[in-house]
């Protein structure tokens, strides 16, 4: 009797053990949280969606997806076609090139330090998260023209993708494609420019760069003889991106008359006070992301300075801060602008060059992982 009970118990233990080990083998191990993740204190707070924590597996998957032409309907372009690392993930074109060679509406945006700054994406702020943003160019018939169901089917056909999705999230799905791409983009952190090193006390700015920094950080006030480039009224002092709070990171910077003014943020909010408002871009690596503005109309940083110095076009929604900022007490002419001297403009441009992060632009972790496989 006792012997029978013992045998039955042993059999049960073996059965449970075998079953459990089968289940454990079928379940992927927990994804590895990104361990060496750090960012400068001065960048401030950020948040990562609870349902998409930063993990090594998600990053590796997102990186591969970002560079894989399989994401487009014709298998001929990837995210990296318009977001090239050495150009700080822009494409050097005034506006992105469509599938048929046509010029699209907006300039490809630089991808850097996306954990901070605005929590809306695209020039007109139409995406409310990077997860939401990531799928829109894939589906856009003029950009990557891919059907998401078709894409999921394709990726499920790949043993490697099945494994990578299983390790990062579980199943292959459009939600998990978005999550992985968002993770890759969130990890594109640049904190190694000369300006960053200056902030950490590791580098000294030249006299010209320091003058440029001071001008960047000041709103001009002729009453107290303070000269300023007024950059900081839209570009935050440490991140150099637009502000995070609400819609503070969107502005009309005086490119067009009211009749020619595109809708911009108004297309998203429906508020006429937002007509011609566009996302204030980060200025990190700005020296390598020409041409400039949402439609790439300005070729060089000199052109950009000339715009703010004397080419501002007045419209009803123009930022009052841009309309007001003037370094001359009683404006001699009838134009709106900063009225900085040539050497002051050159100083601001010299400071902008200190925002280039060479290590970021060539960081192997952000490069094409498929290149080594071919």
């Amino acid at each position, binding site marked *: 009797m006792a012997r029978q009970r013992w045998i039955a118990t042993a059999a049960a233990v073996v059965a449970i053990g075998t079953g459990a080990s089968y289940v454990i083998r079928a379940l992927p191990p927990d994804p590895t949280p990104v361990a060496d993740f750090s960012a400068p204190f001065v960048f401030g707070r950020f948040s990562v969606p609870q349902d998409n924590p930063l993990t090594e597996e998600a990053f590796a998957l997102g990186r591969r997806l970002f560079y894989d032409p399989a994401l487009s309907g014709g298998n001929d372009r990837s995210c990296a076609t318009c977001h090239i690392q050495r150009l700080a993930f822009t494409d050097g074109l005034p506006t992105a090139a469509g599938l048929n060679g046509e010029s699209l509406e907006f300039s490809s945006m630089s991808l850097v330090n996306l954990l901070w700054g605005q929590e809306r994406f695209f020039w007109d702020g139409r995406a409310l998260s990077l997860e939401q943003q990531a799928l829109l160019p894939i589906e856009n018939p003029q950009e990557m023209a891919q059907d998401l169901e078709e894409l999921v089917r394709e990726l499920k056909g790949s043993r490697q993708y099945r494994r990578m999705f299983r390790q990062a999230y579980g199943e292959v799905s459009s939600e998990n494609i978005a999550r992985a791409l968002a993770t890759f983009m969130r990890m594109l952190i640049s904190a190694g420019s000369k300006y960053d090193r200056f902030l950490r006390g590791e580098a000294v700015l030249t006299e010209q760069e320091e003058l440029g920094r001071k001008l960047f950080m*000041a709103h001009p006030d002729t*009453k107290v003889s303070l000269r300023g480039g007024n950059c900081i009224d839209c570009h935050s002092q*440490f991140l150099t991106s637009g*502000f995070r*709070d609400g819609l503070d990171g969107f502005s009309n910077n005086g490119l067009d008359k009211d009749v020619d003014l595109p809708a911009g943020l108004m297309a998203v909010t429906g*508020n006429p006070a937002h007509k011609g408002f566009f996302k204030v871009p980060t200025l990190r690596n700005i020296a390598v992301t020409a041409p400039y503005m949402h439609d790439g109309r300005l070729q060089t940083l000199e052109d950009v300075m000339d715009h703010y110095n004397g080419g501002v076009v007045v419209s009803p929604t123009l930022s*009052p*801060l841009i309309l*007001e900022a003037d370094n001359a007490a009683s404006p001699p002419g009838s134009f709106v602008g900063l009225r900085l001297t040539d050497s002051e403009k050159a100083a601001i441009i010299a400071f902008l060059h200190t925002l280039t992060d060479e290590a970021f632009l060539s960081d192997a972790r952000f490069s094409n992982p498929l290149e080594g496989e071919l």
Partner: protein
Amino acid sequence: MSGMKPIHINVLLAFLLALTVWHAFRKTDPPASQLRLVFQAEANGQKLVFDQFHYKNPNGPGQFRVQNFRFYISNIKLSGEDGTYLEPDSYHLVRFGAGNESFAVELNNIPLRSYSGLSFSIGIDEQANASIEPRGDLDPNSQMAWNWEVGYKFVVFEGSLILDDAILPLVYHLGFDENRRDLQFSLPAEEQLSSTSAKNFKVDVMELFSGASAFNMAQTQSVKFDRQDARRLAENYAGMISIAGN
């Protein structure tokens, strides 16, 4: 149990009785209360209208519109019969916009049963103003930061004035330690705190220009770093917040 002597049972009963009495008379922890400070942006006694040339320059020519109006309040303190409560990291950016003419600051877990005194500052203390540490709503990468060498703007008003068909910008960025204004509100009676209590305040934007001193926006279209101008407007904004009837 059967072996327990009666004397022991009496001791036990006495102890339980003492515990019950102590429990009944002990000052219990008050329930964690909440207080919502609700700020309503107004002009001329009406809800503030944004983005339209709706208002007459109160002390000069022209019509003006409000495009941005926000300010920091800090160091909120409540005092009542059972003590005072100072909110930790008490830095709040009160901000308004079209469709958001009221803004609520929520104080949670207040260890008081009631309060009759309430104080806070417009602006922030010197220590916080000299720091780049993000605390409460302080953010050195926000619109409210001048730059780390200057500190924070306390009160921001941006808009424009139409004068002889010209649109003139109005930019009042007011800061500097000397322009923090400490406000004290005494209530006529002790008010109970609960999980739903609220206090309403009116914020009259016109007080910026017609408070202690009359300010003509056509004449002075911007105030930023000029200490005298900033002080004049600080005297005015010191009176822009008042308790509204609940």
